[in-house]
């Protein structure tokens, strides 16, 4: 007991655990954070999805409101953002599943996987948005 009492000044001299801001930002680290952010965004984005479905079930008038919002500039930005978040979170999830098996941890491999997530999500989003744009007859 005497040791613990006497040890208080010594305890203050212990090195502190480094926190986030001490590290140089790296792609894998940023993508890990983005994975969580996109997950949280999708969490709240599900509200829009629920609104769309409930409006469709409610009738043409309620559905017209959703159509108006989704067709507006803000609505389009939200939809495109939601699409990217969903695709990025899905690809990031696949990357994490690969890592869960213990594969892809070599420096070059993990950088490649992480970059592939980012590039893949952007490319897929552009493809999806293009399809959406042209099947709805462009800017209505």
């Amino acid at each position, binding site marked *: 007991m005497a040791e613990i009492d006497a040890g208080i000044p010594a305890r203050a001299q212990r090195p502190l655990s480094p926190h986030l801001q001490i590290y140089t930002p790296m792609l894998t680290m940023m993508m890990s954070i983005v994975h969580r952010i996109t997950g949280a965004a999708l969490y709240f984005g599900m509200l829009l999805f629920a609104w769309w*479905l409930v409006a*469709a079930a409610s009738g043409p008038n309620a559905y017209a409101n959703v159509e108006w919002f989704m067709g507006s500039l803000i609505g389009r930005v939200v939809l495109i953002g939601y699409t990217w978040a969903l695709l990025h979170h*899905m690809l990031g999830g696949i990357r994490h599943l690969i890592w869960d098996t213990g594969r892809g941890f070599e420096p070059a491999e993990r950088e490649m996987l992480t970059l592939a997530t980012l590039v893949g999500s952007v490319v897929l989003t552009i493809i999806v948005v293009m399809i959406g744009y042209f099947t709805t007859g462009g800017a209505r």
Partner: protein
Amino acid sequence: MTERAQMRTPLGRVRGLGAAHSGTWHFWHQRVTSVAGIPLTIAFIIITLGLLGRSHATVIQVLGSPLVAVVMLLFIVNSAYHMWIGMQEIILDYVHEDLLKLVSLMANTFYVFAVGLASGYAILKLSFGV
């Protein structure tokens, strides 16, 4: 007492789960729902993309058709569970004040049930046409 005296019961030792009373279900269920989420998300994107800009009559007809409805219900249930665990993890990571933590965890559960049930109900209503 031939063995060393222990506070833990024999059953407790066999279960081996410790004071938390549960194991790695959190981790495992998040992986199960993420694997299921891959095909369901792709299907979800294809379905919603196909319905973009269509008339209300077309949308309710497609969403109410059995195959689409089942895929959408799977997507809703899977996503709801996945995001429930995910948000719980985020809350446990960042919210340290006891009352706020408990309120946040409850709000997470309420939100997920409300959004999940509303979405699922809408699909069922369109399917059964009542």
